[in-house]
């Protein structure tokens, strides 16, 4: 099986690197260019959240081969930052604590097929998203 791709996220340059790796992984799995763009954008927003709220963290990319030739990409964005105090609020459209930047998680959720978030106060946040090839 393919191994995970791990990208440490700390600076704005890491955001660019992460989304480029996501796009090339998508291309190598023959995702359409449109799907690859959605994946790259989701990675960009998740990486940006890490830089903005937690300062540093990591993004892991994994190619999925779901038995019946179903292929996908899983993105795990993890940080040990302050965590999200109110998850329900953070998942509501139009909510962002950083002011003007980021549309936050509801937007990312619309880009992917599966979305899961775990967050604990003072113990960081893990967002796991999956995009299946259509």
């Amino acid at each position, binding site marked *: 099986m393919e191994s995970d791709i791990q990208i440490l996220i700390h600076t704005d340059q890491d955001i*660019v690197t992460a989304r480029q790796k996501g*796009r090339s992984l998508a291309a190598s799995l023959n995702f359409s260019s449109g799907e690859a763009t959605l994946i790259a954008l989701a990675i960009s927003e998740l990486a*940006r959240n890490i830089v903005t709220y937690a300062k540093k963290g990591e993004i892991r990319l994994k190619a999925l081969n779901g038995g019946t030739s179903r292929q996908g990409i899983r993105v795990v964005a993890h940080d040990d930052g302050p965590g999200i105090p109110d998850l329900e609020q953070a998942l509501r459209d139009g909510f962002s604590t950083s002011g003007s*930047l980021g549309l936050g998680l509801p937007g990312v959720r619309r*880009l992917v097929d599966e979305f899961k978030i775990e967050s604990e106060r003072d113990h960081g946040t893990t967002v796991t998203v999956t995009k299946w090839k259509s």
Partner: protein
Amino acid sequence: MEIPILKQGNVLIATLQAAVPDVDLLSLRTALVREVVRSRSRGVIVDVTAIDVMDSFASHILQDLAHMIRLRGAETVIVGIQPEVAFAMVQLGLRLENVATALDLEEGMSYLNRKFRTLA
């Protein structure tokens, strides 16, 4: 890497490369606003044809840039947003509000020229 700004008549043109880090976008914004003043330009074209991902940060910076330049009395046009990029932006919920866009550099130029004529 600094993004070069070209001058053609009374229009400034900046062409973004594929992977622009945030800092370069921020310095482009500053440089364009300064250059519009210095060169007394009437229009600015930002060509994003090579951009394969426009995230929330990039679109906020472009929107701010256009508004700052308008406050200086000049017009900005964003040209070359790729179809997939546009699709992904809208899915995410991004919109470039009150910012002129055009298909490509040529269309951007004729948009600005029309604008200059009506203002003249």
